[in-house]
């Protein structure tokens, strides 16, 4: 049963993440905490572990379709490696309850941002 729910959460988060351009962690972390009672830190670590291979798959597909700007991606990646490491270190140094509250705020901000996309597009956004 647990395996089935994990599969379903993975499938929905994976497709949402790839389609909306979000990593999927915004879904994995709350799902792991609320449905499976993982600690905040375990949920975040597990989320990052899932994100690596899924984003590799998504990148291959996007890249084949010619949508990836590799020159810019390389520069972004340079900063991202340093930022990702520092962010993880900061998270591990924090209390779980503090991190959880901050994550709650992040969820609200993300949902509010995404609200704009819930209306039918009046102008084409495709490029």
């Amino acid at each position, binding site marked *: 049963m647990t*395996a089935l729910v994990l599969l379903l959460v993975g499938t929905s988060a994976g497709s*949402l993440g790839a389609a909306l351009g979000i990593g999927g962690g915004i879904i994995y972390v709350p799902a792991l905490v609320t449905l499976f009672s993982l600690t905040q830190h375990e949920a975040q670590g597990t989320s990052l572990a899932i*994100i690596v291979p899924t984003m590799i798959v998504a990148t291959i597909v996007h890249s084949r379709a010619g949508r990836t700007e590799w020159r810019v991606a390389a*520069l972004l990646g340079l*900063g991202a490696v340093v930022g*990702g490491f520092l962010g993880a270190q900061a998270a*591990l140094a924090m209390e779980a309850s503090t991190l959880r509250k901050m994550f709650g705020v992040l969820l609200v901000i993300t949902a509010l941002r995404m609200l704009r996309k819930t209306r039918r597009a009046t102008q084409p956004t495709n490029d």
Partner: protein
Amino acid sequence: MIVASKAITLGLVAGFVGGLFGVGGGIIMVPGLVLWLEFGQHRAHATSVATIIAVAAAGVVSFATDGEVRWDYAGWMLIGAIAGAYVGARFVARISAVWLARGFVVVTFAAALRFLVSS
């Protein structure tokens, strides 16, 4: 040169948020690319997805060495997630982004409520 420094700065900020919250950083990366580096939505998504690999790889090392990765849960979710990511990226143009976003907003608000109320 300006583009290069902008890109590295954006990577650093998005990477920090992505590592801090275990989410990857696309929340910052995508709007950053669109608003600051003047990318179109689809190119921003595709490029963001590529850089999230770097964020998550850098972040997961720290969590794994602290024993904060539950590989048993990760394994099952991964199977579903890879299938989902393939479908999502492959059919990104055909899926109704509006309905995806609607579902996403409802689930996220519900999760936020639980996080803020019960912690």
